[in-house]
């Protein structure tokens, strides 16, 4: 596993995502709404010709939504067959974090976030949370026709 991580912010908290899974980071000016899709889905954006569903991490984390700002970013992640964008308030920095530095999150955190936070890490005086991307996007189910 790579040591590089993308740092992003949602509300006042800081999170990291493994850079190896990140395809690109794009600024966010709005998405095409998908009526009938889950509330967490901010919509669809077209990034370099590919149509990517975007999940609003604020909604995923149970926070109030905000209008896009100049710092808003879509972090496009790829895992297996699925490519999904995560909308965050800020994402620009890349950090090097040795894998050994990650600690399992306290049980309470695991419970309250329903496993969305996979690990925590102390970087300087900051506490960063590693987001479980697979959990966030949910398991892909086979859809019967």
């Amino acid at each position: 596993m790579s040591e590089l991580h993308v740092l992003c912010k949602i509300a006042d908290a800081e999170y990291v995502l493994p850079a190896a899974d990140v395809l690109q980071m794009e600024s966010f000016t709005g998405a095409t709404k998908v009526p009938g899709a889950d509330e967490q889905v901010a919509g669809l954006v077209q990034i370099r010709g590919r149509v990517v569903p975007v999940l609003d991490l604020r909604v995923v984390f149970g926070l109030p939504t905000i209008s896009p700002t100049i710092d808003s970013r879509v972090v496009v992640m790829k895992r297996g067959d699925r490519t999904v964008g995560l909308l965050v308030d800020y994402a620009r920095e890349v950090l090097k974090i040795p894998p050994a530095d990650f600690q399992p999150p306290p049980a309470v955190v695991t419970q309250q976030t329903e496993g969305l936070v996979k690990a925590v890490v102390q970087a300087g005086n900051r506490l960063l949370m590693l987001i479980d991307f697979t959990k966030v996007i949910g398991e892909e189910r086979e859809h019967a026709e």
Partner: protein
Amino acid sequence: MTSGQSGSQGGGFDSADFVAGFITEAEEHLALANANLLSVEDAAAKGQSTPRQVRELFRSLHTIKGLAAMVGVEPIVEVAHAMESVLREADASAGRLPVGAVELLLNGVRAIEHRVKALEKRQAVPAAPTKLIDALSTLRPSAPRDGAGDGEQTTLAPEIWSKLSGAERSQLVQGLSAGRRGLAFEFIPTPALAAAGLSITAVRERVAERAEIVKVVPRSLPTSERSPGGLAFVLVLLTDGADAALAEVTAATPDAFTPVTLVARHAPAAAPVVEGGAVEDELPEDALRHRGVVRVEITRLDEALERLSALVVTQFRLGRAVAAMRVAGGDVRALAPIVTENGRQLRDLRASIMRARMVSVSELLERIPLIVRGLGRSTGKVARLALETSRAELDKAVAERIFPALVHLVRNAVDHALEPPAERRAAGKPETGLLTISCRELSDSQLELTVSDDGAGVDAAAVARRAGAPIPTTDEALLELLTRPGLSTKEEVSTTSGRGVGMDVVKRIAVDELRGELTMRTKRGQGTTFSLRIPLSITIVDAFSFVCGDETFVVPVAMVEEIQEIDLGLTTRGPDRRRAPRPGGDRRRTARATEMIQRRGQAVPVLRLEEVLGLTSAAEDRSAVESGGGGSARRKAIVVRRHGEAFAFAVDRMLGQQEVVVRPLEDRLVRVHGISGTTDLGDGRPTLVLDLAALGGRLVRDSTGAPPP
């Protein structure tokens, strides 16, 4: 239906159909002719004769001529006739084409293509090019029909050939037949060369190290500055190496080397040819039948698909009827497996029709050699093309879209990337540039086409300068700059690549239109590779675009029964007991079909699309028929039908009708009933493609209390 195509009705003769048939068949034969001409040229360079190709060429042109005469396109008849005459002559002399014939014949094919295109676009067909026809008719048959009796001829100048002994002639002919290259190298001794140690003896020794010398023929020249001694030596050689190596050791310029090739073998006994008559008696269709190929207009396949879609709907209704019977307590044990089987068969049938739309990659690439050849001529570059095709097949619609992108990459490679021969020599590269096009199936839905050259590589600094941007450090960033609209790195306007169309076009086609990917690897001095990853098939539909609730949507034309203006006078509004707000309710459920419009004397329920989709909360109380903004503009009703029942969706305004590429929404996060995919209307944003019938059906189920799907 809104389709505007004029079909042929009744049993009458429809000339439009006939012309369309001519165009398809002519294109088939022109493609074949191009391929044959190139292989004739190729073979000639290796000293082989090509009686089969010449005969096929003859047949192609003969067929085109006959068909064009039937359609009454005189200019095509004229060109085809002139070409046919040359080819008949060649066919009669066992496939020997006169010198320069290939070039003229290629021009002839182009001239016909040009006129077929005009016909297709319903433009005036230009008159036959008289210069070309004159040139074709004055082509001299190259070699004597019978010669010294040895049956072999080469392109070696007759005065040299006559100096060769029988053994030397057969030495040369055998070497050429074995695929070695023949050269006539003219060495003119001068005092300067002699001072540099290059006497004829020295040259003979040096050449002998690199080539097999068949004979050295001295000949006298008029005394001139170029030949102060009035003497030259022609070295007849057989070689496997490059001219450059020979040129280097003999301090000669490349023009001192004349290639020597076999002209032709005499008519083999197996293919006796009766002049003029026999060939013409064969039916042109034979050529096609042999290949087991039928060319079909794509619209016919689309028509079949459309019929199939109707069948699928019927099958669906059948399924529902059986389900209803079961619910009503009927015994459906015998019916159920039949319905399932029927569904499977329909899916198979659909797959078969989709397969019929596929064309092979080699078919996609068949015109590339011709393009490379043409580019080489117009740029003075020497390029060798290596095609690595596979058996992969892709949808005709994809093939048609990707082809211009491919051509553009090839043009760029020859025009910009490959260096002129002298420059390549100086860089220690072979003078002939190498262009490789290969193809690889990435999965059963994706194909990768790569265009590589061994040229100069992309000059990142020059690109950055032109784009007014900092020098990119990665290939990705460089490609990003290269694909900026309007960027062209070549300082001067070149005839082949032109100005204005750049890599942005390639990107637009591959990425925006086909939803593929474009990547690039480049290394200064070593070359560049572009990769196009494209889907094997796409769904293209004719669609209406419209605005509703500040959002733009499209709906396939095939789904729409009618679009009508909502006339306030013909609208009724019924009571709606379910309009009262529900706590935490889903707004979509509050859209009830209580408003109706009159359509041909029938009441059709109107649903507000923005409410069905839950788009707006501001206009809760306004009527479906009132306009959202100023009030004066009338809303439009899109009438669709589901299970025989008509519905209308009220939308704000219609934008237009266009062909769109529909991409399904694959991720489960956004797979929603009633939304069949997305498309790009050119604004770089995804636009939703709606399945209005399904949306209407959802409401019907909601109101009848049936469980959602």
